[in-house]
């Protein structure tokens, strides 16, 4: 690895007070954020590097390049041969992988705690010193096309989801699939990948999360040694995506595929996300999704549609506020045998309207708050999941404090706030309603 000694990056750091037990965070002078989560129960460490760059940060016309680059990061650098990164991790008994989402790309290794410096050396190396060849591009592009075949082309439900999502976001890049549109993936070039890499893979656009049997001071010293010398991207643009125009018309779509065995109706509404210092609305929507469709047996939709009316075999409501820009709130209804999608959708609408009319069941609300309290206990058992939560938050516009405030904000949500927020579910102008069917569904229904 080339040490960027010409860039004078003194290793001073801005230390913030420890915000909660076992979690420490720092920022190096070159902009790298460092987060340490201690868990000393086993001699294991997880190192993760999260880049504030995901599929929604791609330029137009090169969809899938963020994910493509993620694959290419396992190829050669100035210090490592192609494949050597993972081989070295494995030879030391560790495992490694990576993931790409709409707002972030992440890389991680899980390894014996005394091998942290080894994986840090390699992760710091590939942040700036990737050496890609044209051969890498051709072969790895075939691999991501096969990945798309596996995840999407072979799965009617995934194809349907892609079409619905494109209808949901009329102007924002969240409407473009993370893996990319096939016709654009086929043309992704070395230059496309490198342009994304050079701009976004830099210490001032990254977060290092180290979790496990480590001491914060040791992690910091290692981070300074290995990541400290890396040069930041000086002209790093502020993250701002093209925004949605007002949604004035309800959107509906139907996708028929002979591989469908179980038709269903699904509707998503454009919805606000968690924002730093302003998470209230997202907290209310989180509680709304739990009450409406969090548990098949005890939720409102489950009770009404699966138990009382016996018209559905499965129902759900879903919402995730972890998103840089506007997210979605969704409802699903999988009708019972003999119930067509028109009837299923009407029943779903009625159930939601009744919920707004009837209000929140106090006992159900109390049980969900109990679950919330317990989740704070259970989550301590899985330090990698905690690391994931912080990494996702810090790349989605939130801070450590926002993550730590979140449980309390959820706890303070009131029943009245939930009902007030549920009114958005009556406005279908914000929504995309999709029917997934077999090709002959219409004929079957009319028989």
């Amino acid at each position, binding site marked *: 690895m080339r040490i960027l000694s010409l860039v004078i990056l003194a290793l001073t750091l801005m230390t913030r007070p420890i915000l909660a037990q076992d979690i420490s965070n720092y920022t190096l002078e070159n902009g790298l954020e460092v987060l340490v989560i201690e868990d000393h129960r086993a001699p294991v460490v997880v190192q993760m590097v999260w880049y504030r760059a995901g599929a929604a940060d791609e330029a137009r016309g090169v969809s899938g390049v963020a994910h493509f680059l993620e694959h290419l990061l396992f190829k050669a650098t100035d210090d490592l041969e192609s494949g050597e990164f993972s081989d070295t991790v494995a030879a030391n*008994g560790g495992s490694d992988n990576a993931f790409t989402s709409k707002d972030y790309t992440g890389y991680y290794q899980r390894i014996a705690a005394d091998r942290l410096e080894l994986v840090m050396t390699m992760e710091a190396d590939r942040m700036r010193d990737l050496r890609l060849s044209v051969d890498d591009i051709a072969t790895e592009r075939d691999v991501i096309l*096969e990945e798309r075949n596996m995840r999407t082309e072979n799965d009617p439900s995934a194809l349907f989801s892609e079409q619905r999502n494109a209808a949901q976001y009329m102007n924002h890049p969240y409407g473009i699939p993370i893996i990319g549109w096939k016709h654009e993936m086929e043309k992704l070039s070395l230059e496309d990948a490198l342009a994304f890499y050079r701009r976004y893979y830099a210490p001032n656009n990254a977060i290092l999360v180290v979790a496990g049997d480590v001491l914060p001071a040791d992690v910091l010293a290692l981070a300074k040694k290995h990541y400290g010398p890396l040069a930041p991207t000086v002209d790093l643009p502020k993250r701002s995506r093209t925004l949605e125009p007002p949604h004035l018309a309800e959107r509906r779509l139907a996708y028929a595929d002979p591989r469908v065995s179980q038709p269903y109706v699904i509707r998503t509404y454009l919805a606000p996300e968690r924002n730093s210092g302003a998470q209230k609305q997202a907290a209310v929507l989180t509680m709304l999704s739990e009450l409406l469709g969090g548990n098949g047996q005890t939720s409102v939709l489950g009770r009404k549609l699966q138990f009382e009316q016996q018209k559905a075999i499965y129902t759900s409501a879903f919402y995730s506020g972890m998103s840089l820009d506007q997210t979605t709130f969704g409802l699903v209804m999988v009708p019972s045998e003999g119930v067509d999608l028109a009837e299923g959708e009407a029943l779903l609408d009625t159930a939601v309207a009744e919920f707004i009319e009837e209000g929140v069941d106090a*006992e159900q609300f109390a049980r969900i708050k109990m679950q919330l309290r317990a989740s704070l206990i259970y989550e301590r058992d899985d330090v990698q999941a905690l690391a994931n939560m912080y990494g996702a938050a810090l790349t989605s516009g939130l801070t450590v404090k926002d993550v730590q405030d979140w449980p309390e904000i959820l706890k303070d949500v009131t029943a009245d706030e939930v009902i007030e927020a549920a009114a958005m579910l009556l406005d279908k102008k914000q929504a995309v309603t999709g029917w997934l069917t077999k090709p002959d569904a219409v004929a079957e229904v009319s028989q």
Partner: protein
Amino acid sequence: MKRIYMALIALLTFTAVAKAEVEIQEVTSPGGITAWLVEEHSIPFTSLEIRFKGGTNLDADGKRGAVNLMSGLLEEGAADMDARQYAAAVEGLAASFGFSARSDALAISAQFLSENRGAAMELLRAALVEPRFDQTAIDRVRAQVISGIQGDLKDPDDIAGRRFSELAYAGHPYATSRSGTLDSVAELTREDLIAAKAATIARDRLFVAAVGDITPDELGALLDGLLGDLPAVGANMPKRADYQLTGGVTVIPFDTPQSVVIFGHEGIERHDDDFFVAYLMNTILGGSGRQSRLMEEVREKRGLTYGVYSYLQPMDYAELYMGSVASANDRVAEAIDVIRAEWIKMAEDGVTAEELDGAKTYLTGAYPLRFDGNGPIANIMVGMQITGLPVDYIATRNDKINAVTLGDITRVAKRFVRPDDLRFVVVGQPEGLKPAN
């Protein structure tokens, strides 16, 4: 009586600086139920893993799917609670119970807080001892199971796996889906479910592991309260399954862009002296977690797939050596050729010293990393018990890996890697690939 074992896992070969310490206690309850326990009091909850050996292999003739449907109904009403009341009670305690019907065992996983452990165990006891099997619940869960079976019938992975099993084990429960068929599930009655419970959930096939905020005495009392009222004896275990498949290619036409392939032949028993040798050899050939030969040749060099794997699949009554790959219809024939060539190469030439060393370091180093959390540790411990491994296995396992020699691999590769016996089951519209027997 309690016996305490200390299992030290040496982590990594040369430096051996880090060690994972798992202190397993063998607990016997006053009522005579045994369990393995690791105390971990730093977080106020416990993970409990329960297994009843037998599983869906114990479906009665003509009642395929009964054990699966029964297991889905255990949490759908018990004692004086109907399904919704039961679910609300579990939710209110923030406990979670999972019931899953596997081929060789019924698996129950529970997680519960220390503050309401007693109440949570009352609920789990009700599910295991006094499930109601209300007709409305049966019909509701049956509809979910049937929807799942219909989905499997159109899923290329399921289609491939099912065909392989049918061809391999005709006449044995392994030949058919654990969930049953559309017809068999439609005809199951409440009596069938009661019989399925009596066949599978009994103390003569019980294995338990617990990890978390609980002492041996507390666990002993818990075991008697939770499991003491179960019947002593269940149904007879099934016979061994004879492998009936020969080498060749089976093509199942299915209109989808990427062909899905399952391949394999007979494997090696878990208790065979050569199991660790075969395990190491497969790690090199097609294991997941590190760069295998198959991944290198099929994915890295040729870009023919996103993933290709091979794995040993020892079951209680048969054993397989299996693999999978998925590749576009116009490229899958080449992927199969490459896999076949790697199979031949392994059978004829074995592995290099460098490959063997790399696989050893990986496997011995990765092993302690599995012990990361209450649930995973409980899972490992219950798996050891049901497999018949001793409590000191954790301490000796890496030694067994390290003892494998190049000569061992050569010998075992000749014995267990059989290119001529490989059967490929391909679901899709593969080009240039002819069925062959």
